[in-house]
């Protein structure tokens, strides 16, 4: 893809990983996550603010705009850790999709854009991009919201992290073509829906003549949304990688200790081979995910391809890993009281979010000139 992408983790990235992991280990163990998902507050905003103190909310936001001045590669490392912990945090909606879209625009620090970025970076506020979570990056400019005389109206279903968002980044279509607005969440009616992924709240959002601040129009608005979605696809794959790693390592540990037939289950070759195959897939997933993170971090022209490749490959790996975790834990893996189901639901939902693998294969077909049979 790009010239020699760096597919390794830097020392700085590993340090960031370690600090995020230890904070999550303290504050986001799976038993706490499980308790949260049935409460009124699924999303842990207090934890989000603590992570923001580590710079996690604004990693890719320049320092002069209030961010950490790192890159999307670091964001991808954080995504891996959040996936590993099935953390109920507004990372995808706020730090990836909304921020990724906003960062594609130019703006001064004292503009609405600058203020928004600063408040997102500090963790003081969160945002989301007003699109159905299942939207693929090349789906075309969203048509769900219309502008008329500067007022925004429309209904968008299945929006990630909308229930807790303070700000909505709203792609809107009007008589003058595509536009991008910033809308206070208070202007919208947000209805939570029951989400398959217990740890990732979705909501239906309705705007009825809402006012907003215009950020961009035309080609600029379109390309910003596309950038946000491509960034999302790349970073979501990192999260899926983290999920898959949890599933593999937890299953390996379990099969080392669980005995049946007078021996550890992990000593049965049929199971060893399956876990070995999974390890091979996850190693490949890691390379593909690093490649995508590097491409979006450097705004490589091949970023759309790298992100589509990551989604097309890693979605399946993460789902398989989580399915194997359930199956190889036997009856206990089928219970609510064991964390495997949280990962199964996360992995399966991620495989639909931002386009299915099938959808991303079509994107690849277009980008690398492998047209369909006629």
């Amino acid at each position, binding site marked *: 893809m790009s010239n020699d992408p760096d597919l390794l983790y830097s020392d700085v990235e590993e340090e960031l990983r370690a600090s995020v992991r230890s904070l999550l280990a303290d504050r986001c163990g799976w038993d706490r996550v499980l308790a949260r998902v049935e409460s009124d507050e699924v999303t842990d905003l207090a934890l989000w603010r603590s992570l923001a103190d580590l710079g996690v909310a604004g990693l890719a936001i320049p320092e002069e705009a209030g961010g950490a001045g790192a890159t999307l590669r670091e964001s991808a490392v954080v995504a891996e850790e959040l996936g590993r912990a099935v953390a109920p945090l507004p990372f995808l909606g706020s730090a990836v999709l909304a921020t990724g879209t906003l960062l594609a625009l130019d703006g001064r620090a004292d503009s609405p854009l600058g203020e928004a970025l600063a408040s997102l970076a500090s963790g003081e506020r969160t945002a989301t991009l007003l699109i159905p979570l299942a939207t693929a990056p090349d789906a075309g400019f969203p048509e769900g919201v219309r502008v008329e005389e500067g007022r925004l109206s429309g209904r968008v279903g299945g929006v990630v992290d909308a229930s807790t968002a303070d700000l909505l980044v709203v792609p809107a279509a009007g008589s003058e073509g595509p536009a991008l607005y910033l809308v206070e969440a208070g202007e919208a009616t947000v209805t939570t829906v*029951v989400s398959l992924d217990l740890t990732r709240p979705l909501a239906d959002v309705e705007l009825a003549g809402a006012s907003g601040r215009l950020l961009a129009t035309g080609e600029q608005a379109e390309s910003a949304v596309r950038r946000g979605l491509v960034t999302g696809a790349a970073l979501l794959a990192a999260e899926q990688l983290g999920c898959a790693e949890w599933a593999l390592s937890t299953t390996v540990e379990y099969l080392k200790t669980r005995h049946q037939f007078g*021996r550890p289950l992990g000593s049965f070759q049929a199971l060893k081979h399956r876990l070995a195959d999974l390890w091979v897939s996850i190693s490949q997933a890691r390379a593909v995910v690093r490649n995508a993170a590097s491409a979006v971090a450097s705004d490589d022209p091949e970023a759309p391809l790298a992100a589509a490749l990551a989604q097309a490959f890693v979605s399946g790996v993460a789902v398989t890993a989580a399915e194997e975790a359930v199956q190889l834990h036997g009856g206990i893996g089928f219970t609510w009281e064991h964390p495997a189901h949280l990962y199964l639901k996360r992995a399966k939902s991620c495989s639909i979010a931002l386009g299915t693998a099938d959808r991303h294969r079509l994107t690849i077909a277009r980008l690398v000139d492998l047209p369909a049979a006629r």
Partner: protein
Amino acid sequence: MTTAPTGGVPDAAALRARVADFVAAHDPATTDPIEFLAARFDAGLAWVHFPEGLGGLGAPRALQAVVDEEFARLGAAPSGREALVIGLGMAAPTILAFGTPEQQERFLKPLYTGEEIWCQLFSEPGAGSDLAALGTRAVRDGDTWVVNGQKVWTSLAHRARWAILVTRTDPDVPKHRGMTYFVCDMTAPGVEVRPLRQITGEAEFNEVYLTDVRIPDSHRLGEVGDGWRVAQTTLMNERVSIGGGAEPREGGLIGLVAGIWRDRPELRTPGLHDALLRLWVEAEAARLTKERLRQQLAVGQPGPEGSAAKLSFARLNQEISGLELELLGGEGLTYDDWTFRRPDGVDLAKRVPGFHYLRSKGNSIEGGTSEILRNIIAERVLGLPGEIRVDKDVAWKDLPK
């Protein structure tokens, strides 16, 4: 095992006529459903392959489908029998094979009519795939047995009147030899049932604690120490009953997904089309295989072939429900209800695609995991050598726990 009724074993045509006569004499619209089923039992039309007097006619097992079809055609198929899966699919054939005449007389009819629900107290925390490792102890005390232990993943225990129960009666012999099989009264003192919640949010299954539960020796099924052999009969039948029911083309989950495909052109892509067609072909192959198996089974107990049906049933359900979510895209990201509750049974058609996906994960675990079924096919059908066993000739009490 079967006694032919006077006049010989009826054929399909004769059975159809009998069903028609029966329905004419017992109007399903006005007869109480339990009375209707009791009369059907008495007429030998409950399970025609059972002997006369026990709900059957000593006819070939394959003819049961003819009888069921005929009742359905006449609008007299029994309904709401989800809670009877264990009774009908597992307890009944085991009681038929190993029960005393008194036991058969006592248990089979209310089991069939649905007046008494059954559950299966087999699995334990330390004994799942390795069922023969189980440690629930039964100790003889005169004419009764005193049972202590813990069972787990017990579907329907909260509604059951009776359980089929496997226990350890002799810890001093190797594990397969020291087991004994009982019918356990779920209302007896010392039986405690606690719900266990599943990944779907609800609780079909339970933990069951048995503390000094007294079971009369007259409720023992099979010989003392012969529990493993009795349990094998139950398990072979369980696999057929989970994966082996007769069904029409597109009868299972594939029909639901095919319906979505036909109704919703906007969801179609070439890749999903290919995936759907592949699964359609496999589902149809699996359906015909089950149908062929059903035709092969004249009378007698299902063999290891039933394992193959259950294996493909589980895999197909999982793949089809996974595809269903992908096909639906954004709608696939939602669920209906996570609230903890006690369902009556599993009716996939009434639930959302997310439930199909999650519930079908249990299909490759319940009733023998897919891995264990592959071992059964490899060893008992193909005759491949078994794993080198470290636990076969050791007294149960000396096994590592």
